[in-house]
C-alpha cells in the first residue's frame, strides 16, 4: 500500500466546507381570540402536520383529581355537538388522516397529520372538536374503565413503577406526585361535571397555540385558519397551582420489591428547574456531557466499561413546573451498588472538576450539529414551534439558544453543576428484588422497601 492510500486509511478524514444551516422561516401571529398561530412552509412531501396545543396539562390537575387532564384530552374526539365518536373517526378515515388527542404534563394536544390537499378539512375538524366536544356519559364510562385497566398494568411495568415512585417521593401532595394518568381512586371519582368544567376552563383560545407545518400555501393556510378557528372564543387561561418539589437533607433509598425481576430498574433523582428557567438551555449542555448522548460520561462508564446496563442516561425534564433531574438505567441486579456509586461520583465530579476544553467542545458541536436532524420531518419542526408556544418563548429563541451553546465556557458548566445538582441529597429508586438490593444500597442512605401496589396508590410512597 503506498503512502497516500495509507494516509486515507489511517487518519479520520478532515471535514469539508460547512453547509450553513438556518432555522426554517416561520410566521407567528395572533388571532383576535388570542390564539397564537405558528406557520411554516417546508418541503417534505405532500403532507401537513397540524397541532393545537392548549394550556391544559396534567399539572393543572389537583392530586385528588389526578388523571382529569389526560381523560379530558382523550374524550375530545369521542363526541361533539354534530358528530358521534364513530362519525368523527370516519371523517378522519375519509381524509386518510391520523388524529391524536392526548395530554402530557404541560399541554393538551389535538393533532392531525394528512395530505396537504385536505388541509382545510383538517383545520375545520380540529376547530370543531375543540370547540364543540360534548363528553357523552357512555364514552366517559368506557374510557374510565379502559383507564382503570391500564392503571392496573403499571403494577408489572418496572419503568412505570420507578416513575411513580420518583413522583411520589419528590412531589408529595402536588400535581407531579402521581402519574398524569391518575390513580385508581382519583379516576373512579372523576364525574362528568368535573371533566366538563376542566374543558371549559382550560381549553380556550387564549394561551393556546396552533401550529401548521409542511406543504403549505401561506396565504391559503391563513384564510383557512381564520375560517376554521375564527368562531372559537373563550375565557382567560387558568394558571396551575404552584408546585414545590420536596428537597431532602440527605440521600435516601426506596426499593420497590419485585422478587422475581430479571433486572433492576434504577432512577436517581431530585426536583429541578422549570422549562422557562434561564439556565434551562445551558443545562442541556451539561446534561449532554453527563448522560444525554451515547458518549456521555455515565453511559460510557456503566455500559462500555462495566457492562452492567444496555444504556444509562440523564435528563432535565421540560415541564413548566419544577420537574425532576433524573439519571435512569436498567441495571443487572448484582451491579446496582457499583452503578449507583459511579453515577453519584460523576455528579460530584462535575461540581469538583472543571470540564476539559475538548470534551466540552465535542458536546457543543454535537448539540449544534444534531439540531437540523430534529427538523427532518414536518412534525419535528412542529414540535420545535410548539415549544415556543407552550413555554411562551420568543420567536428568536432557537437562534439565541444555539448562540448560548456556542459560547458556554468550561467554568460555566462547573457553576451550573454546583447550582443545579445535589449529589448528596438524591432520591434513589430501585425496582427489583429487595433481598439482593438492600445490602448493596444501604450505604447510600436510609432505605424504605415498598410493594408495587403501594407505589400505585398516591400517598403511599415514603416521603
Amino acid at each position, binding site marked *: 500500500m503506498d503512502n497516500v492510500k495509507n494516509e486515507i486509511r489511517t487518519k*479520520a478524514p478532515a471535514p469539508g466546507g460547512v453547509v450553513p444551516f438556518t432555522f426554517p422561516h416561520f410566521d407567528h401571529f395572533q388571532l383576535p381570540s388570542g390564539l397564537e398561530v405558528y406557520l411554516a412552509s417546508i*418541503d417534505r412531501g405532500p403532507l401537513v402536520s397540524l397541532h393545537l396545543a392548549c394550556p391544559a396539562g396534567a399539572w393543572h390537575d389537583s392530586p385528588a383529581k389526578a388523571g382529569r387532564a389526560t381523560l379530558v384530552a382523550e374524550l375530545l374526539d369521542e363526541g361533539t355537538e354534530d358528530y358521534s365518536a364513530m362519525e368523527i373517526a*370516519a371523517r378522519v*378515515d375519509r381524509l386518510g388522516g391520523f388524529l391524536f388527542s392526548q395530554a402530557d404534563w404541560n399541554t393538551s394536544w389535538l393533532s392531525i*397529520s394528512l395530505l396537504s390537499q385536505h388541509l382545510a378539512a383538517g383545520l375545520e375538524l380540529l376547530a370543531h372538536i375543540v370547540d364543540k366536544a360534548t363528553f357523552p356519559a357512555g364514552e366517559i364510562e*368506557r374510557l374510565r374503565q379502559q383507564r382503570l385497566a391500564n392503571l392496573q398494568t403499571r403494577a408489572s411495568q418496572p419503568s412505570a413503577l420507578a416513575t411513580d415512585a420518583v413522583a411520589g417521593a419528590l412531589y408529595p401532595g402536588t400535581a407531579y406526585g402521581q402519574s398524569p394518568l391518575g390513580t385508581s381512586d382519583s379516576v373512579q371519582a372523576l364525574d362528568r361535571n368535573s371533566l366538563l368544567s376542566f374543558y371549559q376552563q382550560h381549553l380556550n383560545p387564549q394561551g393556546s397555540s396552533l401550529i401548521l407545518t409542511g406543504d403549505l400555501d401561506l396565504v391559503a393556510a391563513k384564510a383557512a385558519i381564520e375560517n376554521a378557528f375564527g368562531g372559537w372564543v373563550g375565557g382567560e387561561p387558568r394558571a396551575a397551582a404552584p408546585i414545590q418539589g420536596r428537597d431532602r437533607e440527605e440521600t435516601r433509598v426506596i426499593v420497590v420489591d419485585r422478587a422475581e425481576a430479571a433486572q433492576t430498574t434504577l432512577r436517581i433523582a431530585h426536583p429541578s428547574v422549570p422549562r422557562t428557567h434561564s439556565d434551562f438551555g445551558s443545562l442541556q449542555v451539561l446534561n449532554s456531557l453527563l448522560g444525554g448522548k451515547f458518549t456521555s460520561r455515565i453511559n460510557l462508564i456503566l455500559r462500555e466499561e462495566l*457492562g452492567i446496563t*444496555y444504556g444509562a442516561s440523564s435528563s432535565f425534564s421540560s415541564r413548566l413546573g419544577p420537574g425532576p433531574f433524573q439519571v435512569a438505567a*436498567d441495571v443487572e441486579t448484582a451491579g446496582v451498588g457499583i452503578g449507583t456509586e459511579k453515577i453519584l461520583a460523576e455528579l460530584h465530579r462535575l461540581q469538583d472538576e472543571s470540564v476539559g476544553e475538548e470534551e466540552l467542545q465535542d458536546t457543543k458541536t*454535537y448539540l449544534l450539529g444534531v439540531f437540523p436532524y430534529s427538523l427532518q420531518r414536518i412534525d419535528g419542526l412542529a414540535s420545535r414551534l410548539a415549544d415556543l408556544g407552550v413555554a411562551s418563548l420568543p420567536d428568536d429563541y432557537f437562534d439565541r439558544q444555539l448562540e448560548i451553546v456556542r459560547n458556554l465556557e468550561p467554568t460555566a458548566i462547573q457553576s451550573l453543576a454546583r447550582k443545579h445538582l445535589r449529589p448528596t441529597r438524591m432520591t434513589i429508586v430501585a425496582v427489583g428484588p429487595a433481598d439482593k438490593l438492600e445490602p448493596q444500597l444501604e450505604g447510600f442512605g436510609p432505605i424504605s422497601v415498598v410493594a408495587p401496589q403501594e407505589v400505585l396508590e398516591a400517598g403511599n410512597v415514603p416521603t
Partner: protein
Amino acid sequence: MSTVSSARFPIERHTLANGLQVVLQPDTSLPLVAINLWYHVGSKNEVPGKTGLAHLFEHMLFQGSQHVGKNDHFRLVQQVGGVANGSTWFDRTNYYETLPAHCLSLGLWLESDRMGFFLPALDSEKLENQREVVMNERRQRVDNQPYGRAFERLNETLFPASHPYHWPVIGYMDDIAAAEQEDVEAFFRTFYTPDNAVLTLAGHFDPDEALRLVETYFGPIPRGLARPEVDATLPDEMLGQVVTLDDDIQLPRVYMAFRLPTFGEPEWYSADLLSAALTGGKTSPLYRQLVYERQIAQDVSAFVLPTELAASFVVVATGRPDTDLAELEEIVHGAIETVASGKLRSADLARARNKLVTSFSDQLQALDDRADLLSLFTTYFDEPQRITSEIERYLGQSAEDLASVARDRLTPEKAVTIRVIPR
C-alpha cells in the same frame, strides 16, 4: 388520490468491482447526509446453539476497527454533530449515521474501516464487555418486561426448531453468554463482505463526488467467498397449536399468527392491507367490536412482518381483567371469516388505502428513513425505485384479493395461538 412521484426522488445506482451496491439519492433540503449500510445477514443465518450471534456481532462492530479505537465510532460521529446506530433483524443487519453534509467522508471512512479492517481490532475484553451489555439488553427488553417472552414463544410455535425464524433475533441468554471470539470472527469473514452489502446515501452531496469517495474508501476491500445456503424448509404439522403462558401481568393477552408467503409476493400485500383494514383505527371491525362495543379488549392490533423466508400475519389483543381469551379469539376468527366470505365493508378497505397513501409519504420525509427504505428495496428486490412505486402494489389489491388470502391462509385451523394469562 395523490401518490408519491418518483421525479421527487432522483436515484443513482452503481455497483463497485468488489460487488458493493451503491444507491445515491441527492436531496439538498437540509445540510445533512444519511449513510445507510445493509448487510444481507441476520438471525436467519445463525444455527441452533449459537443464537443471537448476528445481533451480538452488530454490537461488536461498534467496538472499533484497525484504525478506529474502542469508543471512537460514536465519539467521532457525535463530535461533529452526527447520530449513529445499527439494528439487527431476522434477514438483515443495518448500520447508519446521519452527519452534517460536510462530514460525508468521515462516515464513509468509519463504515469502510469496519467492513475491511475489523478483525485486527477484535479482542476478548471487548467481546466480554458486549456480551454483558447484550445480556442486559435482553433482560431489559424481554425478560423483565410484561409479556416479554410471548413473541418469542409465538415464533417458536409457528416455525419448527430447524427453521431460522424459530429463535428470537436477540438470541437465548445461554447462547449469548457462550459466544466465543472464533464465532464472531467466522461470522465476519462469511457475511461482512462488500458483495453482501448495499450502501445508500441520501442528502446533501454531489453524486459524482460521493461516488468517487465511496470508491476510494470501499473499492480496495476484497469480495467475499460463497455464503452457506439457509435451509428454510417449512412443514405444516405445527399449525393449529394453542400454547398457554403465565406471566407477572394483570391483563390477559392473546397472540395469533398465520404463515404467509414471503415479503414481495402479491398475497403478502393482500394480507398487509387486510391487517390494516381489520384493525387500523377506531372504525375498524376489530377495534369496533372488541374495544368499543363489547368492551372486552383493552387494545387490538394486526400486522404482517416483512420477512423473506416466510412471512406471518399476527393479531394481538389484550383483554380486560375478566376477559375469556377464547371469546376474543372467536371474534378475531369471525372478522377474518367475514372478509373471506366477501363481506368486508368497502369503507374499511377505503380507510386502509387512504391511510396507507398518507403513511407512504410520511415515511419518505426523513433522509435517514428514506435511506433505510432504499437499502431495503435494493437488498430484497434489487429495485430501489420501489420507495415510490411500492404503494401501487397495495392499491392494486382488490376486495377479492383480500378475501382470497383470508380464505387460503388465515383460517382457524392454520392459526398458532399464544395465550398469556396472569400468574
